[in-house]
C-alpha cells in the first residue's frame, strides 16, 4: 500500500516539475534569459529524477508481489519467472504509460547531459517542448491511466500474471522496449525542430544536433520493427513475419517519415535548401508516433466506438489534435524564415535523387497511412466494418520499394550539382553487377517478375554502396565514420530487400495430418512424427510433438513444435519450430495435437534468415554513424 502512495506522489511531483519546466523554458526562450535556461534545465532534471524513481517504485512493487497496488494485482503472479515479472511493467496499459515516462526521462536526462555547457534560448525552447510532452504523460498517469491506484481490500494473495503472449517468447521481452525507445525518442528531435521553428533559424550546428537526435530513435524504431517481425515469425505460427496489420503499420509510419527526414537533412548542410521541409518531416514523425501509440493503446481497431470506453482514448486524441494544430500553425508562421535561398542541382544530380527519395518515402507513408486509417473512417462515418486487404499494400509498396532500391543505387553514384558525362558513363559497372545478380537468381530459380527486378536493382545498389564504402575507408575511418555508417545501413537494407522479395515470392507451404510414426515428404525433407510429450512448467503446460527431419535418408535435426497452455487463457498458444539454414528455413507449426495424430502446417521459406541479418547490419551501421559524431559533439 505504501508503495502505491509513494509512486503516486512521485508522479505528481514529476507533473509539477514538467509543467513548471515547460513554462520556465518557453518564457526563457521569449525573454532570451540565460537564468531562465538554467531554471528549465534544473526543473527538467527534477522531472527525470521523479519519473525514474516512480518507475523503480513500480518495479519494487512488482518484484515484491505487492498486490495492494492494483496494477500488480492485474499483471503479477507468484508463479511467473522473475525476468517476466520485471518486464510485466509494460505488459498492460497503465504500466506501459509509466514505462513511456521513464524512457522519456532517460532521453531528456541524457540530452541535458550532452548539452550541459549550452545556455542558448533555443535550447530553452527545446527543453520546454520535451517537458510539455512529459507533463502530458504525467497527466495521463494522474488521471485516466493511473498505474499506482491502490486496491481496496481484500488484497488478493495471487494474480493472473501478464498476457501469455508476453511470456511465450524471449523476443517479446526485448522487442517492446526497442519500439518504446524509438517512439519516445522522437520527442527529442521534435523539441529541436520546434525550437528551430520558434526562433526561425536552423544553423549548421543545430542541424547536426537535430539529425543526431533523430538518428537515435530512428535506429531503435528500425530494430524494434525488425524484432517485432522476427517475433511474429517465431511465435505466431503462420509462417510469415509481416501482415500489414494496423499495429505493424503504426510503427512503420514514423520510421518512413524519419528516414525521409534523415535524408532531407543532408541537403541543407550541402546546399542551404530544404531546412523547412526537414523540420516538417520531423514534426510529422513525432505526430505519427503519437498516432501509433493512440492506435495501439486505445483499442480503436476492435471498433471505432470502443475507444471512448478505453481509459486514454479521448485524452490522447485531444493531445494529438493539440500537437497537430500547434505544428501546423508553427510551420505556417515560420517556414519562410527557414527556407533559405539555396541552390538546386541539375535535373540529373544528387540533389534530385534526394528529392525523389523524399517523394517516394512520403508516397509510401501516404499509402500505408490511408490503408491503416481507412477502416476507422469507414466505420466512424458510414458505420461499415471493413478492413484493407494485404493486396492493397503489396500492390503499392512493391513498386515504391523497388523505386527506392533503384534510387539507393543511382543516388550515391550521382555527383552534386552538374554531372559530367564521365561520371554517368561510370554507371556501367554497377549495371554489370545488377545483371550478375539477375543471372545468379535465374540459376536459383528466379525467373522474371518483381523478384528479378529487385535482384537487378540490388546488384546495382550493392556495387555503388561497396564502391562508396571503399572510397570512404580509404579516406580514413575516423574522418568518414558517419558516411561509412550510412552506407553500411544501405548495405543492410539492400540485403533485407532481397530477403523480402525472394522469401515472399518463393515460399511453399502445406498442411497435413500425421499419425504416429507416419512420414511426409515436404520441400526435399522427410518429416516423421515420433512422439508427443506433455511438459509441466510453473506458469504453463507445454504439449510438444517430436518430429524427426531427414534429408536423403540422413537425420538432419529433430523439431519440437508445441502448443502452450496457460491457465486463465482458453486457447493454447502455438510455438512453431524452425530449422534455419543460409539457404532456407523449414518451419513447422502445430495446429492440433493428440497422442496418436497431429495436424501440422509446414513452410519452407528461402533466404529469410538474411532479413534478420540485414536488420543487424542496419543497426550496426546506425551505431557507427552515430557514436563517433556524438563523441565529437
Amino acid at each position, binding site marked *: 500500500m505504501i508503495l502505491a502512495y509513494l509512486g503516486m506522489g512521485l508522479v505528481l511531483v514529476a507533473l509539477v516539475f514538467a509543467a513548471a519546466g515547460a513554462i520556465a523554458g518557453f518564457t526563457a526562450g521569449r525573454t532570451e534569459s540565460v537564468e531562465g535556461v538554467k531554471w528549465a534545465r534544473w526543473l527538467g532534471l527534477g522531472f527525470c529524477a521523479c519519473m525514474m524513481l516512480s518507475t523503480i517504485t513500480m518495479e519494487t512493487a512488482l518484484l515484491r508481489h505487492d498486490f495492494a497496488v492494483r496494477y500488480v494485482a492485474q499483471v503479477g503472479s507468484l508463479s511467473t519467472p522473475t525476468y517476466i515479472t520485471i518486464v510485466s511493467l*509494460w505488459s498492460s496499459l497503465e504500466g*506501459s504509460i509509466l514505462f513511456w515516462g521513464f524512457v522519456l526521462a532517460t532521453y531528456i536526462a541524457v540530452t541535458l547531459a550532452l548539452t550541459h555547457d549550452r545556455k542558448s534560448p533555443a535550447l530553452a525552447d527545446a527543453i520546454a517542448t520535451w517537458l510539455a510532452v512529459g507533463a502530458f504523460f504525467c497527466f495521463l498517469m494522474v488521471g485516466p491511466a493511473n498505474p499506482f491506484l491502490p486496491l481496496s481490500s481484500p488484497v488478493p494473495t495471487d494474480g493472473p500474471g501478464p*498476457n501469455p*503472449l508476453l511470456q511465450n517468447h524471449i523476443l517479446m521481452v526485448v522487442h*517492446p522496449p526497442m519500439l*518504446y525507445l524509438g*517512439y519516445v525518442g522522437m520527442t527529442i528531435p521534435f523539441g529541436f525542430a520546434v525550437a528551430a521553428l520558434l526562433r526561425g533559424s536552423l544553423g549548421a550546428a543545430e542541424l547536426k544536433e537535430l539529425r543526431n537526435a533523430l538518428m537515435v530513435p530512428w535506429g531503435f524504431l528500425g530494430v*524494434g520493427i525488425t524484432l*517485432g517481425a522476427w*517475433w*511474429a515469425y517465431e*511465435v*505466431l505460427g503462420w509462417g510469415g513475419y509481416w*501482415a500489414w*496489420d*494496423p*499495429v*505493424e503499420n503504426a*510503427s512503420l509510419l514514423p520510421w518512413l517519415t524519419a528516414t525521409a527526414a534523415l535524408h532531407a537533412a543532408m541537403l541543407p548542410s550541402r546546399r542551404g535548401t530544404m531546412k523547412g521541409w526537414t523540420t516538417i518531416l520531423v514534426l510529422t514523425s513525432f505526430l505519427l508516433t503519437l498516432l*501509433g501509440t493512440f492506435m*495501439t*493503446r486505445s483499442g480503436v*481497431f*476492435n*471498433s471505432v466506438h*470502443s475507444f471512448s470506453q478505453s481509459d486514454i482514448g479521448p485524452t490522447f486524441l485531444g493531445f494529438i489534435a493539440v500537437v497537430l494544430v500547434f505544428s501546423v500553425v508553427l510551420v505556417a508562421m515560420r517556414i519562410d524564415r527557414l527556407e533559405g535561398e539555396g*541552390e*538546386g542541382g541539375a535535373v540529373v544530380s544528387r540533389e534530385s535523387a534526394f*528529392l525523389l527519395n523524399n*517523394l517516394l518515402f*512520403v*508516397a509510401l507513408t*501516404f*499509402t500505408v497511412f*490511408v*490503408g491503416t486509417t*481507412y477502416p476507422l473512417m469507414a466505420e466512424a462515418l458510414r458505420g*461499415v*466494418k*471493413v*478492413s*484493407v*486487404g*494485404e*493486396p*492493397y499494400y503489396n*500492390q*503499392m509498396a512493391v513498386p515504391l520499394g523497388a523505386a527506392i532500391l533503384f534510387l539507393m543505387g543511382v543516388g550515391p553514384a550521382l555527383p552534386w550539382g552538374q554531372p559530367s558525362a564521365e561520371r554517368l558513363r561510370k554507371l556501367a559497372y554497377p549495371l554489370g553487377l545488377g545483371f550478375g545478380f539477375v543471372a545468379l537468381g535465374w540459376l536459383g530459380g528466379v525467373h522474371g517478375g518483381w523478384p528479378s527486378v529487385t535482384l537487378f536493382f540490388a546488384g546495382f545498389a550493392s556495387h555503388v554502396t561497396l564502391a562508396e564504402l571503399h572510397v570512404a575507408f580509404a579516406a580514413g575511418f575516423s574522418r568518414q565514420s558517419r558516411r561509412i555508417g550510412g552506407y553500411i545501413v544501405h548495405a543492410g537494407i539492400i540485403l533485407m530487400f532481397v530477403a523480402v522479395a525472394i522469401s515472399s515470392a518463393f515460399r511453399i507451404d502445406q*498442411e*497435413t495430418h500425421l499419425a504416429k510414426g507416419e512420414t511426409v515428404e515436404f520441400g526435399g525433407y522427410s518429416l516423421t512424427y515420433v512422439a508427443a510429450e506433455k511438459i509441466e512448467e510453473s506458469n504453463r503446460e507445454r504439449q510438444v510433438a517430436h518430429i524427426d527431419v531427414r534429408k536423403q535418408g540422413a537425420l538432419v535435426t529433430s523439431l519440437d513444435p508445441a*502448443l502452450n497452455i496457460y491457465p486463465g*487463457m*482458453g*486457447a*493454447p498458444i502455438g510455438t512453431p519450430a524452425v530449422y534455419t539454414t543460409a539457404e532456407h528455413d523449414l518451419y513447422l507449426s502445430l*495446429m*492440433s*495435437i493428440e497422442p496418436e495424430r497431429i*495436424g*501440422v502446417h509446414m513452410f519452407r521459406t528461402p533466404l529469410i534468415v538474411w532479413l534478420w541479418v540485414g536488420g543487424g547490419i542496419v543497426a550496426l551501421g546506425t551505431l557507427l554513424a552515430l557514436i563517433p559524431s556524438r563523441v565529437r559533439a
Partner: protein
Amino acid sequence: MKSQRIFAIGAIVVAIGGIAWIALGNLGENLVYYWTPAELHQNAAKAAGATVRLGGMVKTGSIVQGTPLTFEVTDGTDTVKVSTSEIPPAMFREGIGVVVEGTVAADGSFQSKRLMVKHDNEYRAPKDGKMPDEKAMFGTLDDAATTAATP
C-alpha cells in the same frame, strides 16, 4: 532559378496526385468486409468475388469432418455453409465463435482460406443460446498481431 523551382513544385504535386489516385483506386478494390451471415445475405451482390470476413457461431451438429471440412456459421437468424481445406485449430468445436476469411462460391457456400477461433483474455465463449459479442469477435483476426507489436 525561380522558374525551375516552380517546375519542380509542379512536378512534385503531379507525382503526389498520381500516387494518391492510384492508391485510392487500389484501396477500393481490396476492401475486406466484415459481415455476419445475415449481412452476407443482404449484401450478396457486393460479396460476389470479394474477400469477406464472416463472423458467427459454429452451429451445433453442423461439423462434417473430412477434406474439405464443412460446417455452418450462424448468427441466430441466418446461417452460411462454410467449407475449408485448412486444418482447424485445436479449439475448434461446436458452439464456438469463429471468424472465417474467404470468398462466396457460386453455389452460395463460403470457401474459407483462413479460419480463426476467438481466443483472447477478455473474451469467453458465449453461454448456450447466447450470441458471441460481435465486436470482440471481429477483432479476432487482428488480435494475434495486435498483441504482437503493441508497445
